[in-house]
């Protein structure tokens, strides 16, 4: 007590007060993030940990048995041809979706970035599917893509005998990809449009004055300046593509054969149709790791192709 009162008066008190203030700030900060933290623990971290735990068990819901099986489910995955088919289908779906979605969204954004009449209507037209219910959107497309549906009806008017879109391997996957592209291309288009409008006019004018053609100016000036948005859109599209489910469930139920049985649909079959909850949990852990790795790789390689990161 005596030591405290006799000590140097100035600096220690200020340090203590600064420490107290900092602690108050920290507590206040935690108070603000607490609801989010609890929500994340309850609805994200908790289920994630639980799924990893379940994946180490043989869980038969009907027989009410829950037996520790170690890495059996993961070993089974390695030799399961159905899972390999699902990986292949997801790869095809993701590649097709990213390629079509990003390129179409960018092309539409470039068109809408021109000062032409009717662009607002055009923008609303392509953005409107984003706010439509996914299942309703998919059901309508399901009717259109039937053998005797609207698309083949239109083609027959032109004298073309359309394929049975959802019942033939290549066209079934193509149909699912196109339905998903039209559903979400509007959102990516708006993101690209915002990025394009952020490109300084002077930079493009300078390129033009230096003799660059419009195409050269686009590739060498505009694309590097919006590369951050291209990265964001690519990550979002890849992650979203690996989680596709409703479109498959409504349009093809994984068929014909297993050509459109993507990972999430395979996971759903294992868990909710075959009651293999432990095995399905292992599939979902692997899916989580794949998404995490892809996102990490895309993020790490940003320095190579995102202009701002150079």
């Amino acid at each position, binding site marked *: 007590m005596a030591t405290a009162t006799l000590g140097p008066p100035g600096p220690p008190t200020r340090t203590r007060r600064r420490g107290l203030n900092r*602690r108050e700030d*920290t*507590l206040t900060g*935690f108070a603000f993030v*607490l609801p989010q*933290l*609890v929500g994340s*623990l*309850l609805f994200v971290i*908790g289920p994630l940990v639980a799924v990893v735990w379940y994946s180490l068990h043989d*869980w*038969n*819901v*009907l*027989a*009410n048995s829950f037996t520790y099986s170690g890495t059996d489910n993961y070993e089974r995955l390695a030799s399961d041809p159905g899972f390999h088919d699902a990986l292949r289908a997801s790869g095809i779906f993701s590649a097709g979706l990213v390629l079509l979605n990003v390129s179409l969204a960018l092309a539409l954004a470039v068109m809408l970035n021109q000062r032409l009449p009717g662009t607002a209507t055009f923008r609303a037209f392509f953005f409107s599917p984003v706010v439509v219910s996914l299942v309703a959107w998919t059901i309508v497309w399901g009717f259109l893509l*039937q*053998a*005797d*549906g609207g698309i083949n009806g239109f083609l027959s008017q032109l004298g073309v005998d359309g394929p*049975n*879109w*959802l*019942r*033939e391997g290549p066209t079934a996957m193509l149909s699912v990809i196109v339905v998903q592209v039209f559903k979400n291309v509007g959102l990516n288009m708006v993101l690209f449009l915002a990025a394009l409008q952020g490109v300084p006019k002077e930079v493009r004018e300078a390129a033009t004055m230096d003799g660059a053609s419009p195409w050269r100016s686009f590739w060498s000036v505009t694309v590097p300046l919006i590369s951050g948005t291209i990265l964001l859109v690519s990550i979002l599209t890849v992650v979203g593509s690996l989680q596709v489910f409703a479109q498959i469930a409504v349009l093809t*139920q*994984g*068929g*014909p*054969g*297993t050509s459109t*049985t993507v990972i999430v649909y395979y996971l759903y*079959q294992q868990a*909710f*149709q*075959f*009651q293999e*909850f432990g095995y399905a949990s292992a599939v979902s852990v692997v899916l989580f790791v794949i998404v995490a790795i892809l996102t990490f790789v895309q993020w790490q390689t940003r320095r190579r192709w995102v202009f701002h990161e150079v």
Partner: protein
Amino acid sequence: MKHRNLWGVAGITAVALTLTACGGGDGGDSTSDGPAALRMTVWTSDEAQLALFQEIADAYVAEHSDTVSEISFETLPFEEYTTGITTQIAGGNPPDLAWIFESSAPEFVASGALLDLRPVLEETDGYDVDDLEPDALRLWENDGGLYAYPFSNSPFGVFVNTDQLTAAGQPLPADLIASGDWTWDRAAQIAAATAQTSGKAGLVVRDFEFSVWEYLATIWASFGAQPWSEDGSTCEFTAPEMIDALTWIHDQIFTTGAMPGPGTTADFFAGDAAMTVTQISRASALDDSFGWDLVPLPDGPQGHVNVIGQAGIGVFADGPNAEAAADFLAYFTNPENAERLAAYFPPPRTSLLTADTLQAANAKLSAEQLQAVVVDGIRGAVTKPAHANFAQLQQAIRAELDALWTADADVSAVAESVCAAAEPLLAG
């Protein structure tokens, strides 16, 4: 310091969550202390059927208010029905009673999830267990126990749009039955000719939709074919009878046009098809917009085979109200209530399987139709395919059969690939 605080908050939250989780678990058993609130999952959303169930349930609650306070019927979507039940079980919230498809019967019966109903039914006054049709019970029995009551035994028949057939100048099936000519070949000829005239579909196997292949059993049964052996251990898709049946079906789709191709939607009850193979319970969807008839399934190369679809009601053995639920089931299906339910679901009771009894409850069907299709159709009938591993078999076989639904398909090669996919699952 920051890390300590963060871990402190995380620790408090974890403890709070653990306590919350522990607290939540207590609520589930509270019903066992007082009168139970029972819940039965069903796949029907028909208001008249649900009203009848509720009427019977309310009468039971009135008589047993000391043990049961309320009985509710929860409709789950037909397509996702079994998935819905297993999700509820996995979530720790199983229903007390549930309807069960015949295809899932072996899996549910063998799992031990269901209560043996036989002791309760035998001890219930006036239940008359001996009146239950043995053929109807077989699928739901295991080691002398009865694990679900087959409340619905609905035979498959052929609904015919007589207006379309007459307009196409085709003979009516009723006349062909009288002359002994009602065969699948003849039915296909009539369907193809009628479809050509009407521009609509010919013969539709309802609910098949080139995915739910088990409905094709209505055709291949009379070819002497079956998907797997009686003991469920060997694939039979490569048997000559099955090859003949699949070839016949393929021809009707891609050669004669008697059956619509994949991706074509045709609802008989909306007047879009000449004939449809379905269960008699669908008669409720008919109105007077066209003339129709209901006839038994046609004969195949192996003669006449009746096929029925069943649905059972089971009680979950681990539920907190299993005893009360079983007692309600005995009341719900006693002779009096079984007669009332017969308006929609042909019961497994021998005494009620008469044309007169069924006609009193089915105004749309004549006594002759009920005798031919229902009464004669249930005894000795084969049930739609079922297996203890049915869900996986259904998907595996569906995926391989997809290759059959193209014009240039090699039936034998597809059958080989079906068996290659099915054998490991049958063995498992």
